[in-house]
């Protein structure tokens, strides 16, 4: 028997605007929220929505992602029939291709989808932080008897021209699609999450592949072609928390927002919609005798002996006595040595901030940015890192970087 729906998760994104954080891993593998990676959100949404067959399309730096997903057991996706499968580009008898665009990535995996003979396919993006019930989205798709549905968010009109916009009538039927227009006719931004009837998707993927001028992209090619043919297309309104954490400031901000679930709307304390992740397997965290911890999230393996305020600490972070961590995102395994002051920044995995070093110092006359320390970087004792710095290499003792 076929599956009702199969999810295809686009996880090949480089996330180039995350710079140092995505040198060695794809954007969906970027750590988030203390114990998650970004991709935990769409995968957990699938499981919580009753979708048990997920293809993950990888391309850029897939190693961390492959290892992380493994057999899918943390998400309960190690299934006999279905489950989660990593789908990298592969060599074929008639040559091999990287995934040329989002649509081409799905096209190259038509055989995978066919194996499950689904009625519907949901296309997901592996680089958004969002808790969404795809079952509700599918119910909408069926109710409208749609051939294609897209999840949309209302955005402020002033921002609308930054998005791909869906113009829809009072029945949510899509009449026009505008990609980052100068004069927006709508404020319904596409979230890049689509449900297709599989027969329709397959037909348009094959036609798109046959068109040598196509960029093989959903937004630029497939959706305009569907519109041209007057397909039954509908916009599904989503109003929950949604964030594309594509830049350092937005990633930092989203982490800070989980500290304030009452206002931001991203609540990780939801027993009915758990976000699953691969466990670090460490002991409970420890707050030492001289420590101060305020308004922060702390997880397994952390040892806090300094001061931590309004920060998110990932598994196994150590904060030595006398160190101050404030408005910071400190990823797994990093060490903040004594006397260091680490503010308003993102410190990636396994970095070391030396004694009395300062990270996130604002320079006179410059705007206050989010300082970023890359993974495994050693910042020497007494070093000073400016608030707009992007540190990829080790920093010597006493060195100053703006």
């Amino acid at each position, binding site marked *: 028997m076929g599956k009702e729906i199969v999810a295809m998760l686009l996880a090949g994104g480089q996330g180039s605007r995350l710079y140092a954080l995505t040198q060695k891993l794809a954007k969906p593998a970027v750590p988030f929220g203390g114990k998650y990676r970004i991709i935990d959100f769409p995968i957990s949404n699938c499981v919580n929505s009753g979708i048990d067959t997920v293809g993950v399309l990888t391309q850029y730096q897939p190693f961390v992602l492959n290892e992380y997903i493994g057999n899918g057991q943390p998400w309960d996706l190690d299934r006999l029939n279905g489950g989660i499968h990593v789908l990298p580009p592969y060599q074929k008898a008639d040559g091999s291709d990287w995934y040329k665009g989002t649509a081409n990535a799905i096209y190259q995996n038509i055989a995978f989808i066919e194996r499950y003979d689904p009625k519907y396919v949901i296309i997901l993006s592996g680089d958004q932080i969002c808790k969404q019930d795809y079952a509700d989205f599918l119910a909408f798709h069926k109710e409208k008897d749609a051939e294609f549905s897209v999840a949309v968010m209302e955005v402020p009109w002033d921002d609308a021209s930054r998005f791909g916009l869906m113009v829809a009538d009072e029945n949510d039927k899509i009449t026009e699609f505008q990609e980052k227009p100068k004069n927006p006719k709508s404020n319904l931004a596409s979230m890049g999450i689509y449900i297709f009837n599989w027969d329709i998707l397959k037909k348009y993927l094959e036609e798109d592949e046959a068109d040598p001028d196509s960029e093989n992209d959903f937004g630029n090619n497939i959706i305009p072609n569907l519109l041209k043919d007057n397909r039954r297309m509908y916009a599904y309104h989503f109003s929950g928390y949604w964030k594309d954490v594509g830049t350092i400031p937005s990633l930092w901000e989203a982490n800070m927002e989980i500290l304030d679930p009452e206002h931001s709307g991203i609540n990780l304390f939801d027993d009915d919609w758990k976000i699953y992740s691969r*466990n670090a*397997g460490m002991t409970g965290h420890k*707050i*030492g005798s001289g420590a101060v*911890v305020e*308004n922060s*999230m702390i997880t*397994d393996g952390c040892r806090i002996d300094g001061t931590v305020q309004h920060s998110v600490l990932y598994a196994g972070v150590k904060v030595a006595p006398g160190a101050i961590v404030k408005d910071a995102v400190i990823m797994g395994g990093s060490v903040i040595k004594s006397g260091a002051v680490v503010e308003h920044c993102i410190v990636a995995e396994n970095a070391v901030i030396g004694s009395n070093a300062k990270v996130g110092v604002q320079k006179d006359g410059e705007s206050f940015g989010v300082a970023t320390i890359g993974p495994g970087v050693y910042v020497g004792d007494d070093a000073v890192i400016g608030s707009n710095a992007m540190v990829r290499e080790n920093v010597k003792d006493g060195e100053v970087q703006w």
Partner: protein
Amino acid sequence: MVRNKSALGIIFPNNYDSLVPELTSIRSMASIPFASRYRLIDFVLSSMVNAGIDNISVLAQSNYRSLMDHLGAGREWDLTRKNGGLTIWPPFAEKSMVTYKGRIDSLAHIMFFLEKQKEQYVILTDTNIAATFDFNAFIDAHIASGADVTVAYTIEEIPAPARAEKQMGREMYFTYKLDENSRVTKVSINSQEDGLQNFGMNIYCISREYLINMVKEEYVNGAVYLERDVLMKNLDTIHVQGYKFDGYYGRIHDMKSYLDENLRLLDDENLNALFANCPVYTKLRDDNPTRYITGAKAVNTMAADGCVIEGTVENCVLFRGVKIGKGAVVKNCVLMQDTVIGDGASVEYIITDKNAVISDGKSVKGSDSYPFYISKRHVI
């Protein structure tokens, strides 16, 4: 770590249950929560798995629901195996059922299983001690000494609860006299001797063949307990070898030691020592990280994920999902999973079982020598 494929493990999860009747009224010793996110059995299971022992039997006697729920198919310990893996042996529920008492009669129940296994050695162990134990070194020592039975011990004074009068006729503690080659020359039960003793950990290594023969022979003679009915009477014919364990351990003998052994881990040195030899695996709950809200004051405290802390916490071990309300003051406590301490409540030296609730403004105090216990789902 060298894989030792030649031993299988047998765990006795109910031994010493009666020492902590409060905690074992709804569970076994093996499934008592410990160290903020573990159960006692996790330590011995993980130690075995990390030593390459992947054929492990759990001989459950009673109150084993929570243990079965915790262990499941053994996936978290990587024991979901086609060959070997985890096997739970509850007593056979029928009219003529006789539940097991000692090691000999329990092992007699699974003789058919033991006979068809392939491993050369058997490790027998209880679960009342939290330690990361190097079973490879233990098996190597057993082989090197040429002993029939090797037993692990620690050097310590007999703890007060073990010496207490009420202990007579209940649980049995074993102390050993050793010769200069560490061969056991005398076994005592619940000895009252002062000073440092060789105190048994009830962790044994025996060759499978020897064990099978011994159980078959002695069961017929009416033997129930391995130590009382077999070893101590035959020390001249059975070569019992002592193996000194000098790693970190926490042994549970009563509610006070349960509180103390948890709180002792607040010292980083102890915490590091307990987890020094190997990672310890446990069942996961996928809680979000713990949240310290403005107004929270946490000092010298260990906590698992999923807690929300708004009050003051000092010298405590908090299990998953504990909530501490605004203005609450919590000192020297062990609070199990999903305990709720209401706004403005004040508690000291208490042990709460799962889902216990201390209502807003209430005050409950035990003492360091006699912690106050609040049972599962109880609301104060």
